[in-house]
């Protein structure tokens, strides 16, 4: 086959993606750059206003509140979720009886639709009738008003996030099962303690998976929307659960400030991009791409 024919076949197979990429990604991205410099609502034509949106954003107190809330949430829930997921995956990998059962149990919560999940936890965390406080009361602790107290609303969301780590557990588990047993056995022969085995053999071997989960985690937590949107209308109490994506959504579809929302979107994209690059850079020396089939 000629080179040209090769090219043609390749393009034909990739055609859907060329269309999808340009229509549903490249065009919207370009458009949103333009909109971010415009006064734009759904019904009015965009009017170019230069850097006004960005200037207004940086002076917008609520913008900074949502940035802060999102950063705090990510800073707590991301490590908590990763440690939890990795820990559970390692336990599951320990070849004890019943792993199939446990695996399903840990994955179950991530199958629950976000809206049901939010509604279910509203009910569990209710300050007066909630079952969680009732359980705490049994062991002699006066539980806080999770949903009404600004100091506890974010921790409540973190608990909820940790409950849904099943996806990450499965991905870790798959990675762990790929770790050659010969390596672990060799370490055992050298007299390594379980901690040393984990620290020097297992973790390095699955470091690419950890990196993958980290990046997916950054992207996911910074975009947190559905659960707080359903559980805490308007980011109540006192805006303690008002997250970036919620404010962006409100600006776009409640206040009809679509240009403003586009500017927020771009800032978010840059933040995610920077954080991803940073994690790639920082982990460069620690991530080992062993075996075949790496990205």
């Amino acid at each position, binding site marked *: 086959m000629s080179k040209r024919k090769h090219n043609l076949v390749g393009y034909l197979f990739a055609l859907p993606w060329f269309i999808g990429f340009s229509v549903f990604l490249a065009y919207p991205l370009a458009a949103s750059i333009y909109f971010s410099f415009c*006064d734009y*609502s*759904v*019904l*009015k034509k965009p*009017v170019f*206003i230069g850097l*006004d949106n960005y200037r*207004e954003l940086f*002076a*917008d*107190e*609520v913008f900074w509140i949502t940035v802060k809330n999102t950063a705090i949430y990510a800073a707590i829930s991301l490590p908590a979720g990763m440690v939890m997921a990795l820990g559970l995956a390692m336990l599951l990998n320990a070849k004890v009886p019943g792993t199939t059962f446990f695996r399903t149990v840990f994955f179950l919560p991530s199958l629950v639709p976000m809206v049901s999940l939010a509604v279910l936890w509203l009910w569990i965390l*209710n*300050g*007066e*009738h909630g079952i969680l406080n009732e359980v705490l009361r049994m062991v002699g602790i006066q539980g806080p*008003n999770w*949903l*009404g*107290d*600004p100091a506890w609303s974010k921790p409540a969301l973190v608990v909820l996030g940790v409950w849904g780590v099943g996806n990450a557990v499965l991905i870790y588990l798959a990675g762990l099962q790929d770790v050659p047993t010969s390596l672990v056995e060799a370490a055992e022969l050298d007299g390594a303690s379980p901690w040393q085995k984990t620290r020097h053999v297992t973790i390095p071997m699955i470091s690419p998976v950890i990196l993958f989960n980290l990046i997916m985690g950054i992207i996911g937590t910074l975009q947190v929307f559905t659960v707080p949107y359903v559980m805490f209308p*308007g980011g*109540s*109490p*006192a*805006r303690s659960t008002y997250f970036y994506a919620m404010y962006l959504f*409100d600006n776009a*579809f*409640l*206040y*009809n400030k679509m240009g403003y929302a586009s500017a927020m979107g771009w800032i978010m994209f840059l933040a995610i991009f920077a954080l991803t690059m940073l994690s790639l850079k920082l982990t460069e020396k620690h991530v080992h791409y062993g075996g075949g089939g790496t990205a």
Partner: protein
Amino acid sequence: MNRLADFALPGFFLAVLATVWASERVVREDQPPGPVRITYWEKWTGFEGDAMRKVVDDFNKSQDRIFVQLLTVSNVQNKTMLATSAGIPPDVAGIFSANVAQFVDDRAVTPLDDFCREAGIGPEDYKPVYWNAVTYRGHVWALPSTPATTALHYNTAMMRRVGLDPGRPPRTIEELSEMADRMVQKGPDGRIRVAGFLPAEPGWWNWAWGYFFGGKLWDGNDRITANSPENVRAFEWVQSFPKKYGPNEVQTFRSGFGNFSSPQNAFMSEKVAMVLQGVWMYNFISMYNPKLEWAAAPFPHPADRPDLARTTIAEADVLIIPRGAKHPREAFEFIRYVNSRKGMETLCLLQRKNSPLTDVSEEFWRRHPNPHIRLFDSLAASPNAVGVPKLGIWAEYSAELNNAFEEIGLLRKTPKEALDAVTERMQPKLDQYLKRLRLREQAEAPR
């Protein structure tokens, strides 16, 4: 042959897809011959929806040129805005008076001046506060469907139990606070069991407390006045409740309330003895706790401001014709029918509300089941009846006020601090907003 088989599967897929695509006519239905069909989106469900359905049926039966199709749409103001922007608006939409200014500034609604002139509908037909609610920047943009006013609803049995005269509701704010304190009951664990009054219940008019103290939220032109002394005073009064009872205790107590439309509603389940509520409350009481002993009175005023007696929040549900609607003339025919005395009284009777019209029939009074309907009606005519500020950025402003209300409720800020913050934040937003409106008008002005 082989080649043909190769592409059988993808071909089949494409055929199925094409069918799905073509069959999808969720919104754009073809006009069948016969009467002009117009679509009407309304937010109401339950008995309020049934009431509107009855009016729509009456209208459809009264003539054969127009057929109104009523659809229940939740979050109707958002959906209408999105549909209008997408060029597929309903012919009529029922939104709240609070949305009108934003809809007008966003060019989402058709002015009704010409239609009204033709039909002979004018300000003299309506109680001023409602007519005011549908006009903005010198034009008429909507007509009311049902109006409402608010008053203090109080539980007479609970008053009696603590030795208060149930025939003598609080007249001043000070009396209200005092009575409220007398009705508070706490359990052995220190938790609140019953409260007399809580400004946060039901929490629908958190922005409005300033009006009861003579405050205003803006000067009607270009200044935000959220931190005026009257507004600060109002929020100080609001904050006196969490200060007395403990912010966390109030929060926990409130989290135990059932939702509004249920027997567990705080007022219906006798957890809170006095609430600020609208004319519709009668109906919910008769549905969920008909044995409740209650009465209604004008909301109290500060003792040193007798001029503020009979202050009420007067809101209205309104009908608009979104811009780009296919049958504006037919749509107005329907709106006009709803605003005729017959249509309006049918609707308001079934929804248990007062009438926005100046001309009210004797029969309406006779048949209205709410024993206090005349109070609500007279409140609508009160000079102290206030509507939602007609501001294009009201959605944002009210979110801001709500947040300030929450912060003072949790004692995180003093009323002055909270309201200063609101003013500081909203003033530049308003400046910016007005500047952009002007820019746009210049850009769009014919040269």
